């Protein structure tokens, strides 16, 4: 079992450092901006100036997690679908517009996907295993699976998370390459997982990823097989958090998490936060399934359980 010790999110919701994010959650509209915490509390002002949104969010959420747990992370695993888009675009503009041989390297340095996890290790002076995964809409799930594997291998305090940032350029791809009516948003969620129960109220029971999925029929079969492998069935689910709204019929409660996150491809990380905090507020509920079908040819499934009450 992989107990959720602490979880932090910076999103377009008022979600940072909250007892229960559901106290603040509202379905998003296109007008909702990213709600940035006071980054100065986590990042020196001089450094802050050169950091893009995705780096600010990732570093701050991770540091806020580290503050809440006693041990240093012995594994850091980060997922990002499109990585550091702001700096990537900035450097593309530079190489096409600045003449001469002397270019500023900052945007290039910060354009690499693993700037997020690297910067986290730098800021925390953390020498542990440090990994960056990028698999489109399953970027969070593959990072989470790595974190779970680290716990199986004996790691004690594992940081997993995901971050993505929106840039205006994405609007040009709406309707052709990106089929969504949701607003493009930014978000970062980081969680500390451990094999020990600690102060957690819930644990990740399992996470699985599937590729080349086709019809909704196949998806239902995959979901049922996944639940079966984890000794439960759809009747045992108290809530489904789904990227779309195809599986309303499978559980008594259903929420499309993208109504709350907007569109970024690692938004299912925020669904983990929603699941954990749902169990804080809904004391009778026990089991939540996150169905990440944001992209139609792949599927991520994550099963969250309330901790057993000890007799």
């Amino acid at each position: 079992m992989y107990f959720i010790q602490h979880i932090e999110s910076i999103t377009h919701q008022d979600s940072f450092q909250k007892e229960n994010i559901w106290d603040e959650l509202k379905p998003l509209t296109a007008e909702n901006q990213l709600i940035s915490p006071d980054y100065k509390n986590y990042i020196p002002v001089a450094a802050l100036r050169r950091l893009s949104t995705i780096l600010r969010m990732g570093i701050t959420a991770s540091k806020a997690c580290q503050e809440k747990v006693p041990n240093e992370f012995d594994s850091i695993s980060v997922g990002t679908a499109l990585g550091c888009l702001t700096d990537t675009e900035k450097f593309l503009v530079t190489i096409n517009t600045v003449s001469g041989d002397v270019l500023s390297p900052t945007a290039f340095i910060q354009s690499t996907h693993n700037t997020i996890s690297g910067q986290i290790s730098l800021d925390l002076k953390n020498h542990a295993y440090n990994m960056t995964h990028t698999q489109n809409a399953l970027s969070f799930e593959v990072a989470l699976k790595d974190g779970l594997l680290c716990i199986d291998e004996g790691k004690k305090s594992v940081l997993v998370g995901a971050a993505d940032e929106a840039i205006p350029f994405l609007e040009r791809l709406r309707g052709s390459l990106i089929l969504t009516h949701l607003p493009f948003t930014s978000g970062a969620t980081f969680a500390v997982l451990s094999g020990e129960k600690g102060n957690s109220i819930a644990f990740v029971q399992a996470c699985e990823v599937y590729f080349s999925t086709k019809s909704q029929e196949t998806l239902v079969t995959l979901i049922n097989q996944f639940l079966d492998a984890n000794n439960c069935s759809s009747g045992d689910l108290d809530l489904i958090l789904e990227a779309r709204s195809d599986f309303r019929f499978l559980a008594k409660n259903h929420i499309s998490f993208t109504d709350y996150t907007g569109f970024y491809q690692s938004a299912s990380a925020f669904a983990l936060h929603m699941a954990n905090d749902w169990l804080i507020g809904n004391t009778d509920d026990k089991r939540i399934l996150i169905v990440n079908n944001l992209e139609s040819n792949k599927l991520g499934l994550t099963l969250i359980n309330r901790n057993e009450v000890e007799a």
Partner: protein
Amino acid sequence: MRIYVTGYGVISSIGENVEETLLALKSEKTGIKQGRKPYTERFKVGEISWTNQELIERFGLTQNASRTALLGMIAAKEAFGEHELSSEVRTGLISGTSVGGMDVSEIAYKDYLKDESDDLNVYKNHSSGTTSEQIAQELGIRGYINTISTACSSAANSIMLGARMLLSGQLDRVVVGGTDGLSQFTIAGFRSLMIFDEEWCRPFDETRKGINLGEGAAFLVLETEETMRKTGKKPLAVLSGWANASDAYHQTASSPEGYGATLAMKSALKVAGLNPADIDYINAHGTATPNNDLSESHGIKTVFGSSVPPFSSTKSYTGHTLAASGGIEAVFAILALNKGILLPNLNFSQAIEETGLIPVKNYSEGHTIKHILSNSFGFGGNNSSIILSAV
């Protein structure tokens, strides 16, 4: 449980398959030369001469994609070779890449900046994750697919994650490696960092100035013993050790004493259950930047003390192929294990004053080589070491 390598494939500026690669290594022939593209023609690069369209035709590829994906498909197809897909052998693919489809999206983006006449369809190849999905599709792999993007240690980390996925029983077989096509983005980026040598790179040499960039891809097929009983494949090598550690010193520079590198090498030895004295050859990261080679030398000295085994950087052959380098160098290591080869560090003449370490200078065969340590270090202080051993 041991992890076996049962297939390998490689393409780089020194050869478009394993056989050609071995011939080039043997003849001490570098693939680095004056570039041919508008953005490489002023520099010495390890460029593959074919255009994207030529690659598709020459290697019978079924998809039009970015250069990164195409090179990946070529190497992965060679590695997967006669392996067969079967529902009884759960097969995954993990690929490393640093820039994904940047080589094509940067062209579209240039049109966008000019007059917004960019072909939006091109951007579907941009994401790094998509390059891996395209490579998997070319092989028909539909199981677990993942992409590691930790800059220059990406392929080594993919190899490492593949081994861990097999050990945990989540997969029976996994295709692992990395790929990166040259792009104007990376050339300009490394030039902006002032670690770009306009002459031939000279790893571990006192006069080294920086890297030559290259492109390429390499993949290995990893299987457990149990899987080999089903597939009937013969092992080429054992993947015996792996580790990743964070230097946590600077976003692009390595710590002077090579702290992260030392951690990675020591931990990989521990996973393999080996002592430093068991290592017969080190394929160093050796980018030829002043900072990396000094830091890595210190790390090697910390781990191996006064008896540093033969070592070299083969980036003087291929250029620095970034996310692919750990895969390409793993293929070199397997060749070295099976043929008793010590691979030379081309262009070396003068040891780094501070360390006095002298790499292997000439190609030679007939050595007894049981264990090879291969280092890959990336931006963000991401340090990885893997150990390949004779079967």
